[in-house]
């Protein structure tokens, strides 16, 4: 047993790893929320439900059609993205000029429908999804055992997050997106199809949740409840980070995963509440959030 200052390094690094994995999912989900919020000024309450739907589509694709994990990584985000596009086009757009409160309630209703439908269809106990053969096994490090699949999640989600960040900050498409966030009327006046950009942005933000769902399927049990529990934590993370910056959303997501992992090691009783407690402290000290821009 390797110990340092009385701390069991095996246990600690194991919990840190779990924390980083949770953090990867928090980062993907809060990134999606932040992108959608930037243009539409709404919070998508269905983000968690769509993450759950992503996991279920991956499970069904494997179970009924034999579509493997790697294909699902491409197909599922596309399908979930299409659901998002339809949601935006036919449900959210008609009420875009009303109080944003209504959009929020609408997405909450959609979340209830999706969760209810999957509970009805599959029951509330979890289904398991096998880890793809290529990523089975693990690597033995000096102080811990690192399962390959878990390493993959962390690398893949960080790549996707920072790829998205780069796209938004450094490319022309990203410039449109940022301009749309600043002043949609002006952008429309320049002849850019703003409604199309809004639809695609919503689709993309939601697709990120679908992607997270596929990646989560082999580590967590695929269950109708998986999204709602996750989403409330992600809300707290969004409040902690503030929605001012894309990079902030990613960093806060990963960071809070690590904080949660550390708590699981040092004081397991508080592991479910720690992120909410951090939120309370942040609200007391810096109400706008760590990366928040508004007063």
């Amino acid at each position, binding site marked *: 047993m390797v110990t340092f200052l009385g701390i069991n390094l095996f246990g600690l690094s194991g919990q840190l790893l779990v924390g980083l994995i949770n953090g990867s999912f928090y980062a993907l989900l809060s990134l999606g929320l932040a992108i959608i*919020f930037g243009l539409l*000024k*709404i*919070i998508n309450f269905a983000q968690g439900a769509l993450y759950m739907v992503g996991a279920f589509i991956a499970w069904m694709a494997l179970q009924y059609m034999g579509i493997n994990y790697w294909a699902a990584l491409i197909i599922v985000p596309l399908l979930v993205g299409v659901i998002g596009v339809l949601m935006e086009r036919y*449900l959210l757009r*008609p*009420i875009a000029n*009303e109080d*944003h*409160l*209504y959009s*929020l*309630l*609408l997405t*909450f*209703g*959609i*979340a*209830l*429908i*999706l*969760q*209810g*439908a999957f*509970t*009805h269809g599959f029951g509330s106990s979890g289904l398991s999804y096998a880890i793809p053969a290529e990523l089975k096994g693990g690597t033995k490090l000096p102080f811990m055992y690192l399962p390959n699949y878990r390493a993959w999640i962390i690398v893949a989600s960080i790549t996707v997050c920072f790829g998205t960040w780069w796209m938004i900050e450094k490319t022309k498409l990203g410039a449109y997106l940022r301009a749309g966030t600043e002043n949609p009327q002006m952008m429309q006046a320049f002849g850019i199809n703003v409604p199309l950009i809004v639809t695609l942005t919503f689709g993309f933000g939601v697709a990120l949740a679908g992607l997270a769902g596929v990646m989560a399927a082999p580590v967590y049990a695929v269950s109708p409840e998986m999204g*709602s529990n996750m989403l*409330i*934590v992600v*809300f*707290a993370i*969004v*409040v902690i980070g503030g929605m001012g910056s894309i990079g902030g959303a990613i960093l806060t997501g990963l960071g809070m995963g690590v904080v949660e992992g550390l708590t699981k090691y040092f004081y397991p*009783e508080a592991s*479910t*509440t720690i992120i*909410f*407690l951090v*939120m*309370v402290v942040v*609200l*007391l000290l810096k*109400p706008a959030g760590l990366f928040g821009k508004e007063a």
Partner: protein
Amino acid sequence: MKINKLYLGLLGFALIAPTILYPVFLMKVLCFALFACAFNLLLGFVGLLSFGHAVFLGTGGYVTGYLMMNTGITPELGILCGTAAAALLGAFYGKLSVKREGIYFAMVTLALAQLMFFVYLQAPFTGGEDGMQGVPRGELFGLIDLSDNMAMYYFVLAVFVFGFWLIHRTIHSPFGQVLKAIRENEPRAVSLGYNVNDYKWVAFIISSALAGLAGSTKTLVFQLASLTDVHWHMSGEVVLMTLVGGMGTILGPLVGAGVVVGIQNYLSGGELGNYLHIIMGAIFVICVLAFRSGIVGEINKVIKRNFSS
């Protein structure tokens, strides 16, 4: 004066209702109606969407349940303590959440409620997943035995009328006018010298106290306090009741609670019970897309008279 006649008519109906309808159903409606009225004070009259109001309902319920089971105090004191506990929690949560606006307010209240959900899940005194069962109803003032459903019904009615009156008074007071001003145009209210956050905070405390009162009363009615009352589903339900009935109208939450509880009771008995959440979600979507004023709001439009003023 016409509105007073309407209220008197409703009260008259409520007094004879248990001879026509099942008293436990009516008590459930009244408890949820009080909960929804309390919620609507924030949403409809200050424009604050609290997505974690179940935490106050549940806190009131747990505190009352615990005291009734373990100390043998009379029900009115039990309810008072439950209400006070909810108000205290509301004072703390309100102080935190009014720092943020709009969508953030909704997320903060939801996250804070989830914090308490996990606390109640782990705390030994709540009974965890099983909840507190067999809470005694006790004897009101040590005189009236509440285990009789009729006695209980009139007590619940009295509690509801008190809560409803308090909200009515709040809305029509100068304080309530400032709240409406904040809802309509917050920067202007600030520029007129009102300390907006303090007004929101006090409204939050009143609302959470009344939600706690509803929860305490509900625990006595069903003799049960459980995690269901603290779950975010419950927070969603109260939003739905208010939306269906008509947010920002005084009678809306009462009507909405009646409709939603009625639908739930009807569905849970039949084979459609499995579809309950889907149907609730669908009602949400339909209300938002086509029916934003709610039942009372639409009636107001038709008869061109505003019950809320």
